[in-house]
């Protein structure tokens, strides 16, 4: 079949739903493509609360957040079970579903394809390839969607929010969690999740620890962990053995940019504050650009991408001027990396070390933000007003604020 529209959104997670909603609100035709049978993306797997506090001003579970976002999509054409085969630079999109192979002619595109989980196999931990090693997402899919248990006793590798929440979830489902291991010297997830998911259940968290080997004949029988030094090399003599049949890994998300392969990526789509990529008609938002820790940010970014894509389709927004945003001292992640200075912008920043009180500066703009207990796992948000178009680079940096009194 052949379709024609103004804006196509690929991916119906939090970012894609918000983009489709907002683009439609701008008065253009929208088609949303989702490869699954439902929208929501990772939200469907997160049946704990803590979603939407900023965006919907409510404390929701993942699926509840999805329902709220979905309500706003009533008059939007959503095609489920669609897999995008090709995005062509002549603005056609080819996709396949159970009805056949189809083509869409569009004016603008929003990529909202989310991220995939890094697999344990790519770490690379020496050993045999045996069963019993699951990514958190796969384990959640088995438990939540298929009503199946992936094992009886587990170790979790990775203490990001996903890992922490898995520890609680497995415990509640009767799978004994022997330990959570984290290679960094601090937990990767929110403090409140460490308390509610581990401490409340008496699950030990081993910081500066990683898996050095897995053993077993056919199914996993033993996980061997050790403490690591500052180079992440295991320290001999610190090995610990856990007799478990399951290892759940949550060791990072990798933005998915396929099948678009002709725009700038590293590894996610590199976008500007208007969510425009290096191709003016393609916009991107959410975890396919950079990994966000809060769905609220993702939804806001999605809305923004939808808005600018619709404006682009109407001819009201063209290729914006791009000011480069440079990562200065003590900054681990900065997003976006380009700014169209005629528009407002929101910077998402991860510091690269733990601070008591961080002073975050945006140079040469006169912007300073003070953040107490800044840690790499939690994104810091800095808003910028439009600024002088003659500036061709800005730099973001962080340093420890020394109290003037002490």
């Amino acid at each position, binding site marked *: 079949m052949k379709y024609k529209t103004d804006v196509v959104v690929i991916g119906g997670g939090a970012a894609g739903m918000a983009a489709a909603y907002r683009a439609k609100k701008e008065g253009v035709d929208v088609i949303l493509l989702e*490869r699954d049978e439902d929208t929501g993306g990772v939200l469907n797997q997160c049946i704990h609360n803590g979603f939407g506090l900023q965006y919907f001003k409510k404390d929701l579970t993942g699926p509840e957040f999805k329902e709220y976002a979905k309500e706003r999509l009533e008059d939007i054409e959503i095609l489920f*079970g669609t*897999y995008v*085969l090709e995005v062509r630079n002549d603005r056609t999109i*080819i996709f*396949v*579903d*159970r*009805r*056949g*192979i189809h083509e869409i002619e569009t004016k603008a595109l929003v990529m909202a394809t989310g991220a*995939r*989980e890094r*697999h*344990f*196999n*790519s*770490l*690379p931990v*020496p*050993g*045999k*390839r*045996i*069963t019993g090693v699951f*990514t958190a*997402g*796969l384990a959640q*899919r*088995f*438990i939540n*969607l*298929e*009503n*199946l*248990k*992936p*094992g*009886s006793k587990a170790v979790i590798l990775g203490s990001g929010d996903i890992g922490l929440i898995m520890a609680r979830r497995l415990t509640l*489902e009767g799978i004994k969690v022997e330990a959570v291991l984290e290679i960094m010297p601090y937990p990767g997830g929110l403090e409140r999740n460490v308390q509610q998911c581990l401490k409340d259940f008496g699950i030990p968290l081993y910081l500066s620890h990683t898996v050095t080997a897995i053993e077993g*004949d*056919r*199914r996993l029988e033993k996980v061997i962990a050790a403490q690591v030094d500052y180079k992440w090399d295991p320290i001999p003599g610190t090995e610990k053995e856990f007799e478990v*049949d399951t290892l759940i890994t949550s060791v990072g998300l990798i933005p998915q940019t396929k099948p678009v392969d002709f725009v700038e990526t590293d*590894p996610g789509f590199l976008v500007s504050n208007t969510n425009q990529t290096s191709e003016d008609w393609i916009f991107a938002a959410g975890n396919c650009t950079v990994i966000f820790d809060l769905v609220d940010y993702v939804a806001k970014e999605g809305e923004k991408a939808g808005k600018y894509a619709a404006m682009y389709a109407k001819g009201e927004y063209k290729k914006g001027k791009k000011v480069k945003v440079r990562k200065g001292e003590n900054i681990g992640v900065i997003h976006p990396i380009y700014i169209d200075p005629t528009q407002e912008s929101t910077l998402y920043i991860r510091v690269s070390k733990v601070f008591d009180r961080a002073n975050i500066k945006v140079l040469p703009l006169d912007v300073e933000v003070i953040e107490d207990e800044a840690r790499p796992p939690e994104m810091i948000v800095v808003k910028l007003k439009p600024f002088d178009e003659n500036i061709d680079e800005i730099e973001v940096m962080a340093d420890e604020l020394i109290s003037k009194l002490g």
Partner: protein
Amino acid sequence: MIFLIAVIGGGIVGTLIARELNKYVEDVWLFEAKTNFGMGVTKSNSAILHGGYDDPPGSLRAQLCYKGNQLYTQLQKELNFDLKRVGSHVVAIEDEETKYIYELVKKAEKNGVKEVRVVEKLELLEMEKNINPKAKRSLFCEIAGIFDPWIVAMQAAKSVRINGGRTLIKKRLVEVEKKNGKFLLRFQDKSEYFADLVINAAGLFADDVAKLFGDEVPEIFPVKGEYFLLSKDFQYVNSTIFPVPTGISKGCLVLPTVDGGFLVGPNANRVLSKYDTATTREGLNEIREKGTKLVPNLNFRRHLVKTFAGLRPETEKKDFHIDVGKSGAIHVSGIRSPGLTAAPAIAKYVVEYLIQEKIGMNLYKRENYIPEIEKTPHLIHIDRNEWNDIIQKDPDAGEMICHCNKVTKKEIIDAIKNGARTLDDIKFMTRASFGECQGGFCTAKILKILAEYTGRDPREINQNEDGSWIVNAKVRI
């Protein structure tokens, strides 16, 4: 009296021997210990169709490798598998290595391999933009190729089934008795079969199996080779890149795989156990370093999909040992590299030379033999209109299950119809869950389809061998 031939071992060698025999004799029975064909040494290796230029002149390897390479053209048409003759370079980087290139030219000549030429620096760097810019020159062999060897084994086994032979899995030979001029074969599952002629093609275990017949073949010891598999995301090389070899193996290579990924490896370390396929920290460091010498911009952090190791069935003589034992059984042993390449020639050597000439058995070609078999095409690679037509008849052909390697539900169901029962069967038959996410996304879906189409509970489904379970209970009853 029914005349029955048994082949022990369903690797690439055993399956191709069974198929070759099946062209003459209907009752060929293939016995494999594992849960599918090609899951032994045939599964974990470099998967290169070698040019045959560097085997020691006069060895059985040299005799069979080049011939095998040539036989692959026909074999590929009949068994319908992907084979890309991307060529191979042996690259000299250091000054002292360049003279080896000319030694290779002479060796190639002795082995009768005409399809090689010396490529000088400028052209070499033009052909392979990412290799070490210090490279001086290479020996290029245009007939070298890449393929998935286990697919050849599975397709050959299927071809045997279609032509009236039998192929059995989970049959580990444990005892042999000679009775009334026949061999009585006893398997681990307590089943027994009589055979008039037996061919032992048990790979790493061919020496152990020979002993069951009371025969002696050169002892086989395992030599481990470790690898990194990198994703399709960056085109590192176009052809197989060999270094100038040192000592026991062809060295650590960088090469494309037939489905678009890249392999870096192998090293070569003798190990004690024939079951030790674990990768090691030292080994991975070694190949990372050696690979980077050939292709300096290898990015393991970003592109690593997985690591794995295979075991070479090595002997002191480093040559194939293929002969009739005292018991009358034929032993195909010591099949180390280039065993994949030589396999079709080994099959002919066994059937045309050993059985017909040396044993003197008269065999006649069957008239009803069908050499060609079909294979469900990988839909992503066929013409879009044709694919669309297939979806109109079968909507499952439009449902994408594995997103990394783009495998549809139809392809998975077809694999099940062709005998797939485990997750590895699906993985190795269709490539689903073989990509970057390593099944993180599609494993749950595949398990569900397998359960549904084989009428089993998901808890009964294994990754491969019995005991390699995936899920063990229901969350809520």
